[in-house]
């Protein structure tokens, strides 16, 4: 499986690995609340899931994360502010509200969820619920 330890090959192999899953329907039927911002990448680390989203310019106070069972919801507002008298030459950044809910294929242990927001990247550490963990079955 994808290992990203070789510093020279890291970027390319990671980009290729991310591309591979672009077309997967892993999250099922898609968002159950309106909109699909922010785009998110889902990673697996052992039994647990890590969800990463790019949220540049969104303050922690404008971001809300909710987890229940196997549903993850991200609600927030992104604002883009200028001084009143400014003349705008170019506008590429988008602003607005978002409310996205996704259904994950595993159940999440609510108590163990950790959320980190740094440098415009939101990282959610979602541990798999104990009762949902696979059990090894002895083959006799």
């Amino acid at each position: 499986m994808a290992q990203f330890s070789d510093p020279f090959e890291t970027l390319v192999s990671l980009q290729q690995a991310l591309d591979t899953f672009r077309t997967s329907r892993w999250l099922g039927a898609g968002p159950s609340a309106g909109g699909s911002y922010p785009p998110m990448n889902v990673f697996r680390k052992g039994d647990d899931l890590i969800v990463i989203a790019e949220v540049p310019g969104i303050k922690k106070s404008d971001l809300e994360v909710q987890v229940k069972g196997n549903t993850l919801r991200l609600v927030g507002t992104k604002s883009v502010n200028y001084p009143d008298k400014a003349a705008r030459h170019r506008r590429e950044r988008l602003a607005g509200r978002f409310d996205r809910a996704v259904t994950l294929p595993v159940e999440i242990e609510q108590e163990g969820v950790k959320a980190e927001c740094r440098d415009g990247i939101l990282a959610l550490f979602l541990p798999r619920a104990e009762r949902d963990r696979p059990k090894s079955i002895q083959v006799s």
Partner: protein
Amino acid sequence: MTTAQELSVRDKKELVSKEEQTAPGRHYVPYTDIYETDDALSLVMEMPGVERTNLNVALENDVLRVDGQIDLSKYEGMEPVYTEYNIGHYTRAFTLSNKIDRERISALLDDGVLTLTLPKAQETKPRRISIG
């Protein structure tokens, strides 16, 4: 300016470079707003995942070049299972006019957004001419 509309999703813009690259990998063009006030020109660029130490802003021959490297070591040991966007380093360059006071250009990085303030040179600031 805050609008109450829903945020839409768009694909990240990949860099199409005039020069060819020697190192493999894709680069992205950061979304940029440019606005002008009486005193300065401001460039606001979205570069999520770029830390202060991995950001390089250089001015050479009238060209202001911004390079932001993302830290890939954070992805170590993680196996992608579902992805909606790709990641890569950010790069973008702007040609400056000679009306910018180059000595006083300042930069601020906050929540993945870089704000470059380019103060106007003193002689090009607008001034009101009183009529005697």
